[in-house]
């Protein structure tokens, strides 16, 4: 299964920034584009079934169906210091919203390492990978519902 095109392009772009401090600055800038899930989708307190398991930053993921049969992904990150989670949320939204759900469902969780590098703590990498996994699960369930 092909990886969504925008995701491939973004990962290639990140590869061009091997310097750690430059990569960090880029990810901080990306995190600055974070927008909370709109109230029309969900409001606090967010339903537990949307909470990313194992994410220390208390992140939530929501899917919204588009008229073209794809999904928009929305996020909430309750930890005000959760910069990495916000950066990951922005990247997932910008590269996977509107992508074919069948492709989104197959996005591998280890893209986290391509984004942040290998120098992540175990807990941090698990939380970020779980965000990817939750987006993929939403896409997979959506595909199953469409096919039913």
């Amino acid at each position: 299964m092909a990886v969504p095109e925008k995701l491939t392009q973004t990962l290639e772009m990140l590869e061009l920034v091997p310097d750690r401090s430059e990569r960090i600055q880029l990810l901080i800038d990306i995190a600055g584009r974070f927008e909370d899930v709109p109230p029309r989708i969900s409001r606090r307190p967010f339903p537990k079934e949307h909470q990313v398991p194992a994410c220390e930053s208390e992140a939530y993921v929501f899917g919204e169906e588009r008229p073209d049969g794809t999904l928009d992904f929305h996020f909430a990150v309750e930890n005000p210091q959760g910069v990495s989670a916000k950066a990951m949320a922005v990247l997932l939204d910008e590269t996977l919203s509107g992508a074919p759900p069948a492709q989104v469902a197959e996005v591998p969780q280890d893209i986290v390492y391509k984004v942040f590098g290998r120098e992540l703590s175990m807990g941090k990498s698990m939380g970020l990978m779980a965000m990817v996994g939750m987006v993929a699960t939403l896409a997979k369930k959506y595909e199953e519902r469409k096919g039913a």
Partner: protein
Amino acid sequence: MSEIESRGYIHSDVLVSTDWVASHLDDPGVRIIESNEDPLLYSTGHIPGAVEVDWTRDLNDPVRRDYLGREGFEALMRRIGATRDTTVVFYGDRNNWWATYAFWVFQLFGHDKAKVMDGGRIKWVNEQRPLTRDVPKHPASDYQAAERDDKRIRAFRDEVLRHVEAKGPMIDVRSPAEYTGERLHMPEYPNEGALRGGHIPGAANVPWAKAVNPDDGTFKPAQELRALYESEAGLKADDDVIVYCRIGERSSHTWFVLTHLLGYERVRNYDGSWTEWGNLVGVPIER
């Protein structure tokens, strides 16, 4: 008497307030160190003059599962411009979780001029104190490190096994769902690096964050900590205690509380923790 002293800790001088840090920003005898769980956070802004010590890059051996050795610690201290006389002050995100981890590693090398900023990064930020993105350039030092001493405050698996057989007191500081093994079997959860779930037999469960006031991240007063660890978990001040979590990071926070705030003299952190114990063949597990 300062507010921190009034909380009744045995070694209250190990904890400093944000006020204290603010008044020592230009003190050449003090090096402020930020250690975070989030690798991006330091670069978004930090206490002026603070250096970053990253647990993954700075404190771990890059190949084997172990901490850095004497030469690595020496290089780290020289890089941040600290001498044996420098007082290092740790702070960080997540209620100082990673700050106390770095503090614990520094104690393996006997750098006992070390303190923790009460409330951590979030308290400093919420008090709207200054932050900067400027990375300080402290002149390199000629730090001479002692050999790492793993005997005093670190426990290894065979020692833990003997501790279990002797029915020694232990504290598992993970969440109740991790302690019972339930979380490892939740279908939506990622693998947590262990093949088996549960806890080490005899360990009491006191999640690490219970030692902290949720409102501002400061440590609870000694009386409340004693209620938590002694009245509820059954510890005594002269116990030989082993604490553990998943990889030894959260338990270093509890080690800090028991050792420095409550004055326990025999507390060891089992950093192999559940990612080692839950993968070992034949060791006892309780659920």
